């Protein structure tokens, strides 16, 4: 049996697909605790990436007719993305572990031959102290790159640094 087909970069012109309403995961009438997840994508020179495609997926709350669980947002010229979604709760980990509330993120862009996967956790969640992924990262400064910070009411900032100083922890999934 053949192995999975090779990935290729999404390139700079993926916006032909883009529907900006996809950045609002509550657009189909989802109810619950809303939050804004926003941040800037930086390259290895600390310059904003203005052509990235940021996608998010969360397994909680469960996807439904009113909540797709999936969002996509193109970064603007300042490299910023911004999602409106529902606050995730804890979800089961492997074995008997609990995972702290988190949102999965995939960054696709020109210059990325494959998507880069990371997660946004939420600062101050008690379960962060026992989350299997966070605990597997020894360096507290590295671990910190996965923690979204409250910025304003119900607004969380998660900057993504593709390379270099304070490089975001990316995941081998």
């Amino acid at each position, binding site marked *: 049996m053949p192995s999975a087909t090779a990935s290729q970069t999404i390139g700079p012109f993926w916006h*032909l697909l883009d529907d900006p309403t996809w950045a609002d995961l509550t657009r189909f009438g989802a109810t619950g605790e809303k939050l804004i997840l926003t941040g800037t994508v930086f390259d290895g020179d600390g310059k904003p990436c203005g052509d990235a495609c940021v996608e998010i997926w969360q*397994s909680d709350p469960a996807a439904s007719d009113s909540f797709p669980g999936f969002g996509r947002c193109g970064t603007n010229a300042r490299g910023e993305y911004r999602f409106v979604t529902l606050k995730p709760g804890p979800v089961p980990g492997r074995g008997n572990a609990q995972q702290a509330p988190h949102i999965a993120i995939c960054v696709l862009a020109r210059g990325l031959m494959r998507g880069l996967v990371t997660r946004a956790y939420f600062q101050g969640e008690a379960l962060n102290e026992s989350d299997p992924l966070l605990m597997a*990262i020894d360096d507290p400064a590295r671990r910190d790159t996965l923690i979204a910070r409250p910025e304003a009411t119900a607004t969380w900032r998660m900057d993504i640094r593709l390379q270099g100083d304070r490089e975001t922890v990316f995941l081998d999934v």
Partner: protein
Amino acid sequence: MSDPIPFRPYTTGTQPDYDTPEYGSTRKRHPMQRLQKLPHTITETTGPSFSPTRFPASVDLTVNTTGKAAIGERIIVAGTITDEDGRPVPNTMVEIWQANATGRYDHPGDQHDAPLDPNFHGAGRIFTDAEGRYRFLTIRPGAYPWPNHRNAWRPNHIHFSYFGPAFATRLVTQMYFPGDPLLAFDPIFNAMPDQEARDRLIAVFDLGVTEADYALGYRFDVVLRGRAATPMEA
């Protein structure tokens, strides 16, 4: 609660490295640190589902909202999406986008001095059937220059985006055309060490997909990750 069955690791050599120096844009965008291993959890083994009622299909890129025919060579692209066990991936959404026949994207960022076609936008959305098959009509995209190196030209290609059943099966790739002399010089196509992995990105001309007196047909079959045979503890 039993653990979700993880997806198989990618086969060595079949995927491109993030650090692909010949492709200049990777230099400042590839991570320097090792990726953190993450055994799959419910977050990775579940994923979005898209219904054609909410996300309507558009299977004919040759006819724009203007109702007029696009310029260029009409082609049909068809194929099957399976997983690594050969099982069809049914009812999954596929997104496609591409340059027009002159090698120009209908995108403000594309500054290539080639004409836009007012009757061609170059984006579509299709769904596989119950057997994992898909088919759409489009215009054969042109080659275009890009600033990667002196006299750099992208081979003719169509961009594809696949979701499959899980966050872990997401795939974005490009389909190329058989016999394209530019393939040998393209750092994106050549980024995978494994020659067979490259060759599988080249569509196959197929007389069975071709429609008489209408359009040439190309077959492009795609494989998404399969489940690991047995649950793995990492």
